[in-house]
């Protein structure tokens, strides 16, 4: 049975995501798996430095989504099921830096679909608790584990359906964000396909660094960030970095 990690990476006019990918791949290879597939476009691929053995799959990213007024190519996650060459796949955002091997053990479980539902704000401000106004429990699609089977295919079919009718579902579930976010997309789809009941989740909170934190140093074991003129750091702990300037660190 094949097991691997699936990453999506598309450069935009403003952000060199391939630089973030290069760091992410190094950590994935060290801590999670040697089997890595990158979904990208040819333009981004041409700018990447050699990263050793990696499978590439080229697609034309769907355009039109924006974040903070800038182009944001993030809406292809619903195709992960078709694009993954693996029986068991760990899908990760490329700005999720795995400084530990905590995620590797998820690949050894019988769960066919797992997603985290909480985030831990590393600055101690509980920034991510603001999403409580929504009618459904939210999830963080930053990291997804899935196995290929009929049930999971139906989950992804539902994600596609919700995406197709996103404005309707967003209104129904009181999701006020204007842009399309995979977190919301998967939360709504999982709610629908699971008969409006609960579902299995990853039993830990995703350590997350809010966008107003500037990453000042990154090594293979951890990173340091600056916030309010204060430097803090973590080591051997995974970090989801929301400030895309990390590409330039």
């Amino acid at each position, binding site marked *: 049975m094949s097991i691997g990690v699936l990453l999506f990476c598309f450069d935009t006019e403003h952000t060199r995501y391939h630089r973030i990918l290069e760091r992410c791949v190094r950590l994935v290879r060290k801590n999670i798996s040697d089997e890595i597939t990158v979904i990208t476009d040819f333009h981004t691929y041409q700018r990447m430095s050699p990263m050793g053995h990696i499978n590439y799959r080229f697609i034309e990213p769907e355009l039109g989504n924006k974040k903070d007024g800038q182009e944001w190519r993030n809406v292809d996650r619903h195709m992960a099921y078709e694009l993954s060459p693996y029986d068991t796949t760990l899908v990760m955002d490329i700005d999720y830096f795995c400084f530990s091997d905590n995620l590797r053990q998820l690949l050894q479980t*019988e769960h066919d679909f797992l997603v985290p539902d909480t985030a831990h704000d590393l600055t*101690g401000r509980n920034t991510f608790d603001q999403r409580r106004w929504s009618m459904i429990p939210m999830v963080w699609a930053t990291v997804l584990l899935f196995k290929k089977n009929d049930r999971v295919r139906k989950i992804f079919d539902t994600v596609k359906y919700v995406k197709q009718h996103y404005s309707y579902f967003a209104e129904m579930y009181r999701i006020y964000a204007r842009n399309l976010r995979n977190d919301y997309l998967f939360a709504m789809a999982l709610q629908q396909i699971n008969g409006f009941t609960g579902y299995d989740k990853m039993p*830990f909170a995703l*350590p997350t660094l809010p966008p107003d934190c500037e990453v000042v140093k990154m090594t293979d074991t951890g990173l340091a960030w600056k916030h309010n003129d*204060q430097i803090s750091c973590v080591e051997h702990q995974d970090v989801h970095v929301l400030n895309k300037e990390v590409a330039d660190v």
Partner: protein
Amino acid sequence: MDINELKRQSDLSYDTAVAKRNALEKARSRQVMAYNGHLFRADADTICLVRTLKESLDTFCVLDTNHNPVEITNPAEFLGRLIERNQESLNAYKQIYQTFTRKG
């Protein structure tokens, strides 16, 4: 107390509290372990439960982190794995904690 000293001490206390919270969260994440195809939390509750059941049963059922039942057929191995992971995570936490006490 001088107001600048008060601010400095307050900032230090806040930074220490945040760093401690992060270190504790790191330990909690590390306590999640896969066994027999399921996920368990290697915390005090799980260790006490498994040890108690092991004293009177050769095989038994416990719940994983998503409340799914799992049959444990080798309690000694399971308990050993839980203790190992628990102590690994808490020793790492202790090392970070000692840096807070050094800072005062």
